[in-house]
């Protein structure tokens, strides 16, 4: 174990990589440096049969990390390119997992990437997102907010771009959401999961150098806190070496 001077976003990528299983299929969209790093890292470390697919490119092997699958340099050394017909199909049939960041994330893991205020006249218009289906049709998805504060972690999102657990088990079932939904929310401060009964966000571990109180002070809702909250397992030497030397040699994550 290293005690570490690693960037929070690097730690986020490493934590997400650990949850990817060999043989699975998954992908991420635009502005997705952290999940892209997680997927490449998982493939190198423990999941050689994990395939990136569904989002036009199949198993890209870029020489360095790019933020987006829509950066065509990311496609170098890929095994195949697919079209929008296949994307349409993958979006309906789903993958094993998908990723989302958010301008707001609420206690049920609902994601807002569209706007703050009203739809008619937003006080803030975000970038939105292209695919609102992958998280719903895939078996599970991950949340990776790039900032952990009360503006992002809100009680209720202004707009549900992508549903997490909606307003709990009943509403989730009513909406026809039959998959797991959000599994982990990995922020720069902590790892959260979801209480299996209420489907509300629950603190799972706090990153080294941070405290439960700090997480609560920066969370705008009543986060479920178990009796014992461990420190997030720090990166191993191997994880950090592969991330920095092989996945992100240009230091894109370190620049965040």
């Amino acid at each position, binding site marked *: 174990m290293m005690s570490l001077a690693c960037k929070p976003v690097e730690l986020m990528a490493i934590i997400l990589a650990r949850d990817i299983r060999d043989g699975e299929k998954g992908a991420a969209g635009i502005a997705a440096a952290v999940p892209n790093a997680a997927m490449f890292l998982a493939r190198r470390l423990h999941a050689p049969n994990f395939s990136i697919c569904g989002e036009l490119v199949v198993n890209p092997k870029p020489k360095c990390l790019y933020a987006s699958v829509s950066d*065509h340099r990311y496609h170098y050394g890929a095994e195949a390119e697919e079209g929008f017909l296949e994307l349409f199909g993958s979006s309906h049939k789903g993958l094993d997992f998908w990723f989302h960041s958010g301008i707001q994330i609420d206690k049920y893991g609902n994601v807002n990437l569209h706007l703050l205020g009203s739809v008619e006249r937003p006080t803030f218009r975000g970038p939105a997102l292209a695919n609102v289906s992958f998280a719903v049709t895939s078996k599970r998805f991950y949340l990776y907010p790039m900032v952990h504060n009360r503006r992002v972690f809100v009680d209720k999102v202004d707009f549900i771009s992508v549903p997490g657990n909606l307003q709990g088990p009943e509403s989730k079932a009513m909406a026809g959401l039959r998959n797991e939904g959000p599994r982990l929310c990995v922020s720069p401060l902590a790892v959260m999961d979801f209480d299996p009964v209420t489907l509300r966000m629950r603190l799972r571990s706090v990153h080294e150098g941070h405290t439960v109180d700090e997480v609560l002070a920066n969370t705008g809702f009543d986060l479920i806190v178990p009796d014992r909250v461990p420190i997030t397992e720090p990166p191993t030497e191997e994880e950090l070496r592969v991330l920095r030397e092989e996945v992100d040699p240009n230091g894109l994550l370190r620049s965040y």
Partner: protein
Amino acid sequence: MGQLHTDSRQFSDTEKFGKNRERTTKIASVDEVVGLIKPGCKLGLGGALHESRPVALVREVVKRRIGDLSVYSGPVAGYDVDLLIGAGLVKETFIPAITFESHGLAPNFREAVEGGLVKAHILDVLTVVGGLMAAALGLPFFPIAALKGTDEVKYNPLIKKFTPPFGDEDIYAVQPIAPDVVLLHAAESDPFGNIRNYGAFRSVDQLLAKAGKTVIVSVDKIVSPETIMQDPYRTTIPCVYIHKVVEIPYGAHPTASPSIYSMDDDHIAEYWQAAELKRTGRNPEAFGGYLRRYVDEPESIYRYLELVGGMRKLVELEKEERQL
């Protein structure tokens, strides 16, 4: 935009035609094709985000201030749509996501939507693909069954819930998306409009070409009909879908033309800075300065290319594309 280096020379097809019969080329001037874009039209832009965007043609639209546009696009856009909005030419957008990714949010888009000047319709990629499929395939609608739990469905103007004849759940129908004019950028075409385009988003260009009423393609290079015929498998959009072809070298700059040059991140950053300075009020003149320098004043594509860094920059972007 001035004289381009390939004009409507006669190219002969390999077939023999009757006396005084020649196959008509589709090579057109910039003035001719931009004349086909009318104020208030539905304009469809090919490529996505910062790849294969018809930016040189968009600059000509801006230069002529052709406004009141309804803008459609590949499912994600950035620079060129933000430029059109910044010049005050856009009424509404039908584009799922608009972003500059690592540079930041789209400054003019944000400012215009937050200020109530542009209506940014809320929709997603399946709506865009389904709508283009309906138009491309000649169908009255295309079904979408993967929209659940999202607030998008309350506001998306192109979809309607219906009970399908098969299956046990209500799903959505998306209406055809058929832009009046589609602008694409591709690497190569022959004079008759047989297109070769590369890159991750060429399939959206293939759909747009079949969905649009008038389809105009800027290409980095016109190649001979023989070149196309030697390898028809590489033709990604056949001539029958294409109305006009314009040769504009580096016509996608500052976005990428896959296989030829990478995106110019430095220029996109320069644009973003100028637009963001205006949006935040720190320098209200910055964006106007950008428009004058890069859009209004250059009298030709060559002058524009000099302004953005000339040969040195272009060679650098080509090297990057070849991974040198």
